[in-house]
């Protein structure tokens, strides 16, 4: 197992939603992964903030890369804009996944020592897992 685990950034239009999903993912995975909630605008309203996403990427990166999960389509635009300015784009992967399920699956795979590719794949597979 590599010493550093992949970090996770959860980008939501809602600060509470991002925080809640981060808490859930941390609890289910045993609390060994850095999960950063980047939700809401800089003023605390509903929306997304490039500054919060950028700050989140820096905080989440423990040396093994970062997987970013956006909640709704327009959050993707903000994340993409931030990634264009981000120094090491190869270590950051944007995952196309259901927000809550993807956050939990990604964090568990990161806790098990998966690399950015495996963590992003776990998040994206969440789309195919039935609950009932």
């Amino acid at each position, binding site marked *: *197992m590599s010493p550093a685990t992949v970090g996770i950034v959860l980008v939501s239009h809602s600060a509470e939603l991002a925080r809640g999903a981060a808490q*859930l993912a941390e*609890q*289910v*995975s*045993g609390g060994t992964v850095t999960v950063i909630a980047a939700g809401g605008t800089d003023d605390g309203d509903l929306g997304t903030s490039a500054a919060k996403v950028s700050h989140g990427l820096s905080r989440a990166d423990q040396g093994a890369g970062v997987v970013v999960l956006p909640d709704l389509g327009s959050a993707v635009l903000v994340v993409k804009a931030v990634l264009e300015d981000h120094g090491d784009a190869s270590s950051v992967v944007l995952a196309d996944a259901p927000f809550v*399920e993807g956050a*939990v*699956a990604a964090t*568990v*795979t990161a*806790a*098990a*020592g*998966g690399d950015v590719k495996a963590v992003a794949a*776990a998040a994206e*597979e*969440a789309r195919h*897992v*039935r*609950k009932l």
Partner: protein
Amino acid sequence: MSASYEQEITLEGDLHARPAGALAVAAGRFTAVIRVTAGGHTADAKSVLGVMGLGATSGQHLTVKASGPDAREAVAALIAILGEATKVGG
């Protein structure tokens, strides 16, 4: 040919999110292919969502089956986690 091992456990509590997470985190550290079966449904032990989707409850029999180079260790580790994690509930 790598060996295949399996072992059954009777759950002492429901397989909620946290025990499912502990199981999947541990499973992910093995190279073996690991499957858990309960109530006629089978899931990849490395998929926390799959394990939660089993909806396994207290009193149910759950089978852990692994194949690969570290299959024996994987089954032993996961059975131990299931015994411990479902005792206190999730």
